[in-house]
């Protein structure tokens, strides 16, 4: 009996070990599979073995990058998020592209352009360039793509159609007021010439043209509503083509030999994993499974930022980006109809301790609404116009101001609710600010968190008192921040209405003179801060880790990433 008992023990052990071994058996397959995958791109490696300035390029130019969310679409006219932006920037190129160093628009598919004296008519001359299937890229492809965006009867409405409203007649066509597309200021003079007429002089229009909504699409997409959902049907004109895509798992782009500047593109392939976990991303990066981690398309856990900053000083990088984090008031309801009360709250927040202890990303304390990185009148707006002139942190003055405000409203104490969307980061900031207000001003603050969809809905419907918010740049001009607060503006969810402010914005829009625009912007921002419709908290930064052998990755003013010119050094 003893013997058979040990026999049974043996069987049990064999079963357990067998399961483990069965898995190990597959191990070899994994390695050979990976080897096959990495061999493929190195077939073309012959083109990159040249030295550039003493740097030796790696033979295998396959980049590994993580995306924390899957791009919802590969259709440039339907995209509206930063992940799609990063991928589409690899696949397409507009009339202009952004220079990585200067942030200025430079020649893209258009090799030159003429601008009329009144700043309204742009004539673009296209270079000889090709789609990935060999067809020539023509002015018609742009007109076709832009008509897709604006067509009110399109099968799929383009949510970002308003990005094209700068073009004369575009808004009227999109909203159905005019039905004849030839009345829109988009004219194909010949295959290589495109004439665009604007509604207002728009000094940043050349920059806008590098934005994805303005990318061309191949005419073959016309009869195929699902063209952007499969890999094979996507014909692109940019440095890369999409070659692999597994929903929710991974995607890959491969160098497009038909791209006109293919010689500038050193990466052969970029493999993207789709993992929505900062901790996993960081660990993979440390483990060498990723060449880069962090924003804007990936994520490093906030609490890890100070640690990795010390641990990898040569790999860590931080860059200010054109986004602002703020609290906004519903100024249609008492007590926040009173500007003194609003201003007192703004002055009683101590921003630096919040940054040092909570956000941890080296953000910049904000006292204005236009963030760092935004250009205007040939220099950075925030450098030319210091935000410290608007207001400063001053607890004693805040208390006095609050008492005055409360007296005007006939109140003896202040209590209200701060609403934020569910997220640990927003919660910590809200707790800290509520505490600062309580200590400095003795006000009673209730905190309320709401799930994202509910939160946005309530904010749009003015169903809040004080709410957290953030705004990022659509284009490189103060207008992208300031025009949202005009009376009845689509994104003005504070109820703010000030005719003086509206007038300044209108005047800036109508002017082609940079000095005049600058003057209007400064005046407008001053009104906004005097009225304290929003309490600026900080200007965002982007934090990332890049392996020392990965070069050529750039972030623009808004924090959008450009991987097209990236390459690997031997390591």
């Amino acid at each position, binding site marked *: 009996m003893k013997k058979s008992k040990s026999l049974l023990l043996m069987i049990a052990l064999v079963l357990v070990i067998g*399961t483990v071994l069965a*898995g190990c058996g597959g191990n070899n397959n994994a390695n050979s599979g990976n080897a096959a995958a990495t061999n493929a791109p190195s077939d073309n490696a012959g083109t990159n073995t040249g030295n550039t300035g003493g740097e030796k390029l790696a033979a295998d130019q396959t980049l590994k990058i993580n995306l924390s969310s899957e791009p919802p679409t590969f259709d440039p006219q339907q995209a509206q998020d930063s992940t799609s932006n990063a991928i589409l920037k690899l696949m397409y190129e507009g009339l202009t592209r952004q220079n990585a160093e200067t942030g200025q628009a430079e020649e893209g598919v258009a090799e030159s352009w003429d601008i009329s004296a009144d700043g309204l008519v742009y004539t673009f001359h296209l270079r000889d360039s090709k789609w990935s299937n060999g067809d020539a890229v023509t002015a018609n492809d742009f007109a076709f793509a832009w008509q897709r965006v604006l067509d009110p009867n399109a099968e799929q409405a383009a949510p970002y159609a308003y990005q094209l409203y700068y073009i004369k007649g575009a808004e009227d066509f999109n909203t159905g007021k005019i039905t004849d597309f030839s009345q829109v200021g988009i004219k194909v003079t010949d295959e290589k010439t495109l004439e665009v007429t604007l509604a207002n002089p728009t000094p940043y229009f050349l920059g806008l043209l590098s934005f994805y909504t303005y990318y061309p699409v191949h005419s073959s997409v016309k009869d195929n509503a699902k063209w952007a959902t499969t890999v094979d049907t996507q014909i692109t004109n940019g440095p890369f083509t999409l070659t692999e895509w597994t929903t929710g798992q991974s995607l890959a782009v491969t160098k497009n030999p038909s791209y006109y500047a293919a010689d500038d593109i050193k990466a052969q392939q970029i493999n993207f994993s789709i993992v929505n976990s900062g*901790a996993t991303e960081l660990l993979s990066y440390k483990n060498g499974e990723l060449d880069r981690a962090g924003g804007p398309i990936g994520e490093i856990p906030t609490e890890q930022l100070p640690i990795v900053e010390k641990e990898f000083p040569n790999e860590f990088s931080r860059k200010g980006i054109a986004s602002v984090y703020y609290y906004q008031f519903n100024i249609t309801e008492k007590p926040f109809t009173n500007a003194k009360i609003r201003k007192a709250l703004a002055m009683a927040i101590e921003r630096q301790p919040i940054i040092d202890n909570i956000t941890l990303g080296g953000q910049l304390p904000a006292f204005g609404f236009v963030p760092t990185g935004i250009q205007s009148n040939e220099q950075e707006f925030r450098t030319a116009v210091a935000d410290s002139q608007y207001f400063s942190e001053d607890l004693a003055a805040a208390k006095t101001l609050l008492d005055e405000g409360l007296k005007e409203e006939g109140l003896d104490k202040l209590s209200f609710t701060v609403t934020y969307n569910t997220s640990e980061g927003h919660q910590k900031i809200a707790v800290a600010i509520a505490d600062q207000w309580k200590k400095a001003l003795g006000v009673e603050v209730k905190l309320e968190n709401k799930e994202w969809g509910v939160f*946005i809905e309530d904010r*749009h419907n003015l169903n809040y008192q004080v709410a957290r918010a953030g705004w990022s740049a659509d284009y490189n001009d103060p207008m992208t921040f300031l025009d949202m607060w005009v009376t009845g503006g689509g994104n003005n969810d504070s109820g703010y209405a000030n005719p003086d402010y509206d007038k300044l914005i209108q005047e800036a829009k109508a002017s082609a003179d940079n000095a005049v625009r600058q003057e209007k912007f400064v005046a407008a921002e001053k009104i906004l801060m005097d009225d304290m419709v929003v309490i600026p908290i900080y200007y965002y930064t982007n934090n990332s880790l890049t392996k020392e052998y990965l070069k050529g990755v750039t972030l623009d003013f808004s924090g959008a990433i450009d991987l097209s010119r990236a390459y690997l050094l031997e390591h």
Partner: protein
Amino acid sequence: MIRYVFNRFLHMVVSLFVLISATFFLMKAIPGDPFTAEKKIPEQILQRLYAQYNLDKPVFEQYLLYLKNILKGDLGISMKMLNQEVTNIISQTFSSSLKLGVVAIIVAVIVGVALGMLAALYHRKLIDNVAMVMAVLGIAVPSFVVASLLQYLLAYHWKIFPVMGFKGPMNYFLPVMALTASPIAVIARLTRSSMLEVLHSEYIKTAKAKGLSWFEIVSRHVLRNGILPVITYVGPMTANIITGSVVIEQIFGIGGIGKQFVQAINTRDYPIIMGITIFYGVILMVARFLTDVAYVAVDPRIKLAGRKGD
């Protein structure tokens, strides 16, 4: 048997109908819609998007439309993942969850039963104690802790397995371990206690008296009876595992259906929410049905016909 299957099928149809209706109206009751964004879409464009997806119609009409499409087997098109069919998204993401799940279930059952058997046979000995301490740990420690720990030790520290991804067999190890820690523990405990009970029963003594070998007794009598409670557990566990663990999929970067479901809820992607809910419902019901059938196979005393009340 046929009558049982038929009853069961009717039952499933009614349950599904209730599930669909409840989910549909609850989902619509949540504020926000797929086109809610921090940067508001201009009203006119928004109205066109609503019209395109029938969101401009009264909710009840939308509901009838949806039911009609379901009867045609059409789960619709995602509102966030542009122009992608819900059935495609489900089949793509489910295939990842299924691959991982099947491996996990096999590992959980084999290891769990083996550990439980060892513990029972060596009752109150070292093996038993070690196995039961492991079982308590497996139940008590949440899977995301196990997952992070495995990632840190086996992937980062010792560099045996990759941290994330789902391309080759090496990618299976960590998620399977994290996914099975708790089921193994439960199965081991269930097996142990029911085997102990059986080991002390009269018919085992009879079998011994008959002169059957110990091996034969355990494999033919003890295991067969001792495994019943495990089957009860394995049914729901199977449904649970193959429908995808959100946490495990997030941590190990597996493009599974659990991750997709949560994302769909966050973005109010109505067709995907409905599609996956229905899919989950069907899986759970099928799993329960199979469990019942498995009972009969293992224990002839149980008759399906006798379960009319079910």
